[in-house]
């Protein structure tokens, strides 16, 4: 990987002999780069311009009849709730998987195991929705019932339990499976980059494997894991189809995870209502999409900021 750090400025820039071909080519390349910035600005601009009618409309005209804020608020709660469950479940698992693949699995098959985990990322989200609906939701029904019977003193499990299992809890678990490969890929990359001298020094002093990981690997990989978790969070916030297929509810904002009247998420609400929406309904949905865009933008920028502080580490791969 030493070649990546080599300076890429060519030495020919002192004596400028600009041929037309050079100018055209450099211009095209630079233009493409600027075009990408324009696209991102365009995403924001077009969303804002299409959302404005809903933002400025009087409260009665917005679907629901009580204003845009009242319409979007339960969706924001639903979006955050599902994403946070996914994050809480997926992060410890992903760290465990990354440690297993980098330091525990037999060397011979470790790469293959990493590839198998990456396969989870290759499965389209609509298929995850199918699986969640057909397999996971029915499997979780007994747990929903048990939680409602025994844990109802926790507001999250207040019940009554859904009979179909199509709840925010199921959605959160499916989202956890979907973001697992993202977090574990980044965690794997940082863990494998932990300085070999530190690791060997720890082992040479008689540390067990776990003590070596605790002293040499985890401190080094901490910020990478945090960044990976935030990228996973961004993905979970914007996930659409799995939520749209599994979640049956459309209720008010609630923290209750196991009823059948959970609030939907922003993305799935758009996907389900957009094809039939007309007039101001379209603008309202685009306005909610703008909110989602801003939330994910903030999360991603924070994650990228944390990743970029580690100069030698690229999180995109």
């Amino acid at each position, binding site marked *: 990987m030493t*070649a*990546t750090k*080599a*300076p890429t*400025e060519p030495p020919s820039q002192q004596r400028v002999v600009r041929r037309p*071909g050079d100018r055209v*080519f450099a211009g095209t*390349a*630079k233009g*493409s*780069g600027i075009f*990408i910035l324009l*696209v991102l600005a365009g*995403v924001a601009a*077009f*969303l804002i311009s*299409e959302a404005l009618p809903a933002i400025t409309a009087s409260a009665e005209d917005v679907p629901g009849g009580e204003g845009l804020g009242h319409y979007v608020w339960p969706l924001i709660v639903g979006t955050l709730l599902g994403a946070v469950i996914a994050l809480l479940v997926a992060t*410890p698992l992903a760290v465990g*998987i990354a440690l297993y*693949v980098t330091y525990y699995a037999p060397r011979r098959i470790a790469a293959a195991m990493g590839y*198998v985990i990456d396969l*989870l990322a*290759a*499965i*389209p*989200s*609509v*298929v995850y929705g199918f*699986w969640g*609906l*057909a397999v996971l939701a029915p499997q979780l029904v007994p747990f929903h019932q048990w939680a409602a019977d025994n844990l109802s003193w926790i507001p999250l499990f207040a019940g009554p339990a859904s009979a179909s299992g199509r709840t925010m809890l199921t959605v959160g678990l499916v989202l956890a499976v979907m973001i*697992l490969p993202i977090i574990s890929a980044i965690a794997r990359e940082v863990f494998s980059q932990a300085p070999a001298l530190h690791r060997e020094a720890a082992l040479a*002093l008689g540390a*067990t494997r*776990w*003590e070596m990981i605790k*002293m*040499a690997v985890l*401190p*080094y990989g901490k910020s990478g894991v945090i960044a990976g978790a935030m*990228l996973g969070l961004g*993905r979970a*916030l914007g*996930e*659409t*189809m799995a939520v*749209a297929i599994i979640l049956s509810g459309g209720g008010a904002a609630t923290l209750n995870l196991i009823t059948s009247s959970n609030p939907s998420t922003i993305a799935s609400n*758009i996907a389900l209502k957009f094809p039939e929406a007309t007039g101001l309904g379209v603008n309202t949905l*685009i306005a909610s*999409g703008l909110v*989602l*865009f801003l939330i*994910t*933008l903030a999360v*991603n920028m924070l*994650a990228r900021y944390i990743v*970029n*502080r580690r100069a030698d580490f*690229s999180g*995109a791969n």
Partner: protein
Amino acid sequence: MSTDTRSEPRLAASPEGPVRSHRRLPRFAPLGLYLAGIALGAGLSALTGFSVTSTVVYGVILGTAAVYLTSRTVEGSRKGTDRLVTCLVTTAFGIAMIPLVSLVYTVLDKGLARLDGDFFSNSMYRVVGEGGGAYHAILGTLIITLVATVISVPIGLFTAIYLVEYGTGRLKRAITFFVDVMTGIPSIVAGLFAFALFTLLFGNDFRAGIMGAVALSVLMIPVVVRSSEEVLKLVPNELREASYALGVPKWRTVVKVVLPTAIAGLGTGVTLSVARVVGETAPLLITVGLITGTNLNPFDGRMATLPVFAFYQLTQPGTATQAFLDRAWTAALVLIIFVMALNILARLISRFFAPKTGR
């Protein structure tokens, strides 16, 4: 950043003090103990009404406990903790395998029923019950993905060339940062963007495959840029310098030296980016929609695509519910096959077209 990793190892300060004994468990003892724990778990599960789930849950807990407690007693607490963590980490990997295996099994189980010739040769035109297929949706997915690739690859590749060969200063940093941020745009937002763009340009009722292709491009471009950039960076600088020394203009150096050297990696990156968008549903759902007939013109009218087809077959089954569900699962299976084929293709490209550099 990593200053805290430089703290000296504090082995002696470990709370339980030095290892009390040097006794070690025989080599296969932990595995045996673990299996014994699982057998015990099966027994426990049989007492409370046998089920596979409870067997696995009880077995893993008891197996872990057996290994930990034995090792702690025989080998001391430090070694015991080490074995406990080994068990936990392996369990984490096992847990991740459950959804993968379950998902693949379910899709194969339910999808194979309709994986026949009709599925690939018939559309849903005038089909209300059994029969029909996804001919129109498969072609639609191929066309829209192809258009998205044609849009994304030049833009993404030129941007990567700019970043690696030309870019300096703030513009380069801004593009790098925002390309990274763009990888996190939710797919549904990309769909809304394409919808808003075409609504402003062509009016409210405009629907065409190109809308979906533009939405997919927004998702695809950052992936192409990132992967191409990584690959172009790997091209040794000596090759460029040798070319400059021979008086070759910079743009010809890029076209004739840098790109051919990196072609395998570029091919892999583009293939993976196609795999990333081919299964996208949400942006196509809200822009292109779905029709039952075959529309091969991406610039006029709605088109059917495989993911959207699968979604509607599942969520809006007609009177012959089972026929719709079968088609949905088969579409999901075909979609997975597409994505897996692209992933394997990417691996083959990187294996067979890799440049023969000295590294």
